[in-house]
């Protein structure tokens, strides 16, 4: 009986998570007339793929999607590298100035400079309207460093010490001992970074607004949604009734790729957890 209750609660939670996506999907696949009449809920009415055809034939969308995928890949790799090499030294008790480094890192987590100082800094560094502004400033998340550090703390010192007795230096210990044992946290943080980069548009909005060639997909989406809410007279060929369908399809188009990464990474979560227990 208890299992049934748990299963029932889980189903409700799953439904609550899925319902917005299902609604969006059905809106993107419905005919505009049904949307006008507010008849579309979880299932599409008047199934058609016109909105997706339009979006896929628009080079602006596809180019932005490809760029965002590349950007996400670069950011993921760079961020994980930075996070690892920042977190790793902090687990050594005998690290000189460890408390100072810890405090300095933590300080930046609680106190941000804000929009204008950041703008001034990026301007001075030549990063404004430069694609690097989408990569460099956010390549390290202090929160994620703390997660990583905490995870590395959990790995027994004896493993490291035995490797050191065999002559391994810090880099070899990191590469051969810690990283293989940290796949689960690496997968988790990779997902955090990937989702954060994929969904981010604030940096493009404030620091990249004059370089259209490198708009990430979410900023493009932001423009589309804003633009459709402010359509000017006689300036568009999109039928008014269809704008909801296009909006829904645009959001789906921008969301699905990052959703697909999750099942792929889930394998590594399980693998990482299993590996840890075997070693333990």
């Amino acid at each position: 009986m208890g299992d049934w209750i748990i299963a029932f609660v889980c189903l409700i939670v799953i439904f609550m998570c899925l319902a917005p996506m299902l609604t969006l999907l059905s809106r993107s696949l419905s005919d505009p007339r049904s949307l006008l009449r507010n008849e579309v809920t979880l299932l599409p009415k008047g199934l058609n793929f016109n909105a997706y055809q339009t979006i896929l034939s628009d080079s602006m969308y596809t180019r932005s999607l490809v760029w965002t995928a590349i950007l996400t890949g670069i950011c993921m790799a760079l961020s994980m590298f930075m996070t690892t090499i920042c977190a790793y030294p902090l687990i050594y008790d005998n690290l000189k100035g460890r408390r100072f480094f810890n405090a300095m890192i933590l300080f930046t987590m609680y106190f941000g400079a804000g929009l204008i100082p950041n703008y001034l800094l990026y301007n001075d560094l030549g990063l404004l309207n430069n694609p690097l502004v989408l990569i460099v400033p956010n390549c390290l998340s202090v929160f994620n460093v703390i997660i990583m550090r905490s995870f590395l703390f959990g790995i027994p010192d004896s493993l490291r010490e035995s490797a050191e007795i065999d002559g391994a230096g810090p880099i070899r210990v990191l590469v051969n001992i810690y990283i293989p044992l940290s796949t689960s946290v690496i997968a988790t943080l990779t997902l955090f970074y990937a989702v954060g980069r994929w969904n981010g548009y604030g940096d493009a909005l404030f620091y990249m607004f004059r370089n259209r060639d490198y708009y990430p997909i979410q900023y493009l989406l932001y423009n589309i949604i804003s633009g459709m809410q402010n359509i000017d007279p006689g300036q568009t060929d999109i039928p008014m009734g269809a704008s909801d369908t296009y909006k829904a399809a645009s959001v789906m188009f921008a969301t699905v790729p990052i959703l697909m990464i999750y099942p792929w990474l889930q394998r590594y979560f399980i693998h990482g957890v299993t590996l840890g227990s075997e070693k333990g």
Partner: protein
Amino acid sequence: MKKALSILLAATMLAVLLAACGGGGDGGGGTATPPPSNNTPSGGGDTPSGGGGGGEEPSAPSPYEAEGLYWNEETGTWRFTDTRKISVEVFDRGLEDDRTKPEDCHWSKWIEEGVKRDLNLEIEWLTVPRFAGGGEAEIIVSMLAANDAPNVCYTYNHDAITEFGARGGVLDLIPYVDGYRDLLPNLWGLLGEDAVYAARDPEEGHLYWLEAVLFNNARIGTFVREDWLNKLGRSAPTTTQEFEDMLVAFKDNAELLLGADANMLIPFTMSDDVGWRANNLFVSFVPDAITDKELYINGYDDRQFMLPGYKEGVRLLSKWYDMGLVWQDFSTRGAPGETFEDNNMKAGLAGAFIGNWDYVYRQGDKSIQETMKAESTAEAAFIAVDCFQNDAGKYRKFISSRVGDRKIFLPYNNPEPLASMLYVDWVSRDDVRKYLQIGEEGINHDVMDNGAIVIKSAAGTPYIQNGPFNIDYTITFNGSGQIDAIDPVISGLSMALGFAPIDPSYIARAFEYAINDGRIAPRPNFGAIEAESGMANPLKSKRDTLLNQVVNAPLADFDSIWDAGWRDYLNSGGQDIIDERTAKYEKYIG
């Protein structure tokens, strides 16, 4: 090993900085040159000889020689002897829907060509996203801080420009508008004294921005389904009671009006912007005898929320809501940007609404009206009505002031203030404004036999206007649906015809009713009101929350909810604004 670890950690941090320093150079975008236009301003199609370069010798001594200007007989303008260069802000509305790059399109090039020829001025366009999180001002403030702002800027944000001025971020324009008045005949001609000096500080005398002007001051109209009135044999309502009776009749005759969809009928639809979407009803409860002083003192809110009598209008709407006459989901599904509420109209399910005077007619063949015809019945049409009378029997509305919309300013570090002002003057010229508004004949508009100008969509051509009527370039003049630099009668005809295929009589009626008995709230310039600084969003939020709560709540709870909300509004800054406005009014006017 400790040393190695320390170095590793330090290297991590250094790497971030070095990587950042490695950036440089804009990616920039390619350009697509639109076909050349022979419709250049004042030049009749040809660029005057010598217009392409600087360094011309003046033909006669110039009273403005010290400023580097000479009178050019050919162009009939004061022109710089040496080429000057300024940067000008232009809104970026995105490239979707066939829009072109605002900094590199037919219109930007046409302006560049014109100012080069007439003023010997080169333009660099600097785009600013129109739809940034908090509006364009959020970006501009960063650019001002970074000495990176365009030489000529504009914003709609009154709070922001007041803040820029208070912090010394913008130039005082008085030395230019007064000192070079003869050089700015078009600016003075278009704006007039009232607009030019509208933002002048009454005590210190500085002028941090120029107010653009509006031609069309219609704001809000009331609309009902004409075909439903005909089906029910009713005439258009002319009083508030008749309007209510009409809504009841729509509800009671749902089967006759919508057949199988009867249960979906919505007598009166609105969004959660209650203050706007029921404005004509609410302000009809404001006493007609209200003085200019009272209007000013209580006039901070742009939905007239603080005016006396307003509460009774809200009470009536709340009663209609309880009677099932108002869309029951307006608070939860009627957020701006959501389309559910528009859909009520497009699907032909709504019987009446209050909103922008031309809302259902905008976009002509793609308008709500035409979509509704296609989706419901060919007879479906919204027609304007004027029915909310005040205590003096007038159909009072508060219409837009001619002055006080877009604000044009020059950043404090502008190296070319005179050239910038000459540019502002140049875009204020009648011929420049007219061409930017209506564009090319046959592409952007057609001319009827009676002289009326019918605007057409230029989508898919290089002549597409990224903003309606190119309002992003005609910076001293704002508002769509209006052509100002032509005969007023022709302008009226043109406006009515500008919504084809919608019958012009609908437009003319909507416009007439929207300004009928209209009153412009006074906007005396008493300088900055300190209490208003930073209060726009918090007070707007409190207003909207209260209006939504009180309309949704049972009528029996109306007074308690309203009174509590109103007290909260006043305590949250509303009272301070009233007090300061009162003090200023009494100080300057009495």
